């Protein structure tokens, strides 16, 4: 398995950002439950949290996982568009 150094660097940067996001999630886990409870109680301002949080996580963590596999040499085959 050949390691791709350029992808490895990016994987490390995005990986660190992803770890930081998940650390924050666990740190503020109780807060997320509180937001859901408040939404149920009628404070609808918090209802966007379950939409915004997944978007942010998928951007950062999605980039990390893409570079992660790329760094490990898991690349797509050239030119196969289903024909």
């Amino acid at each position, binding site marked *: 398995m050949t390691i791709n150094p350029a992808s490895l660097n990016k994987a490390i940067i995005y990986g660190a950002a992803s770890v930081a996001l998940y650390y924050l999630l666990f740190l503020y*886990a109780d807060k997320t439950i509180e937001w859901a409870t408040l939404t149920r109680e009628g404070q609808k301002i918090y209802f966007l949290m379950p939409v915004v949080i997944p978007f942010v996580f998928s951007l950062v963590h999605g980039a990390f996982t893409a570079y992660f596999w790329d760094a490990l040499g*898991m690349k*797509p085959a050239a030119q196969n568009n289903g024909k």
Partner: protein
Amino acid sequence: MMDSISFIELNAFNVTLLFIVGFIGGMVSGFIGSGGAFVLTPAMMTLGAPGIVAVASNIAHKFPKAIVAALKRHKYGHVDWKLGIIMGIFAELGMLAGKIVMSGIKDTYGDTGTSLYVSFIFVVVLAIVGGFVLRDAYKMYRAEQAGADVHEHKKTRLARWVQSVRIPGTMMYFTSLKAEVSVLFIIPLGFATGALASSIAVGGFIGVPGMIYVLGAPALMASATELVIAFVMGLGGTLLYAWDGVVDVRLAMIILAGSLFGVQLGAIGTTYVKDHTVKLVMGVIMITVLFSRFFYIPGYLSELGLIAPITEGTHHLLKAVGDGTLALALLLGAVIILGALLKGMAAHRKRHEQLAMVDGIEE
């Protein structure tokens, strides 16, 4: 009643389990356009999440996963955005209609009634569509073994007819079909995809075969376009559930952590396979899921008093076997995808080495 909802405690076991199931589910989604939900939702419920929280959290992880996968497959030229968005909008309507039917059944027959209804839909849809997909995959495989050229995507007779119908004012060109099709054919397909998604959580079991056999899209493009539909539906669903405050973001993000690893791998896998492998994976999963449902049905029938009551122990055993079969369905899919990916990569590398050698001699 809503306030009595409790979110589950997170511990190392729960987190690891959700991560692994997320990874496998993601891999299948990246490859066939959907899947994973039917194992993730029961897995969360087994860990103690109330049904509605499990469904809501599953949807909240589904839409970002679907868009990441769709963008990945867009790079490989698999995605038909226009078709996906149009079907997605009507799927949204189908989802609402499906919800109304489910609530109606729940009001009349209770929770067991809805479970029986879901099982019935599972069995009927999967038997018809799954059997068809699997037969088609086998036929393509046989033709390939016999040396026939199956690279050329063949449209079914139904798709050729659908593409030949001209209804003025409703015609639209789609890149995946390389033809104009009346939107009037797309509306019911999108609607059915959404209705199925709201009852069994896997709308792709109608959406993907529908795009292949009714509209005439290649399997690889159908599975990628389904991701756009899943994104549109998932976003709508998440907004609805989030408004009710029943999404457990922690659960959704843990599943997402695993599933994004899987999605990337599944999407890469599609670049190494031919159309029939996508159909094979889809067919195998559908038929295995179909069998899993038989283990749940006696329990529901007994609860509704339609058959002689079965003991608590037997009930639990049957349910465990059913859940196990579901997990097996996903695992089987994952093994076929990984196998195809590794085999494809090895063949690719070999070809490159041979080319490099030829180049070397010429120099």
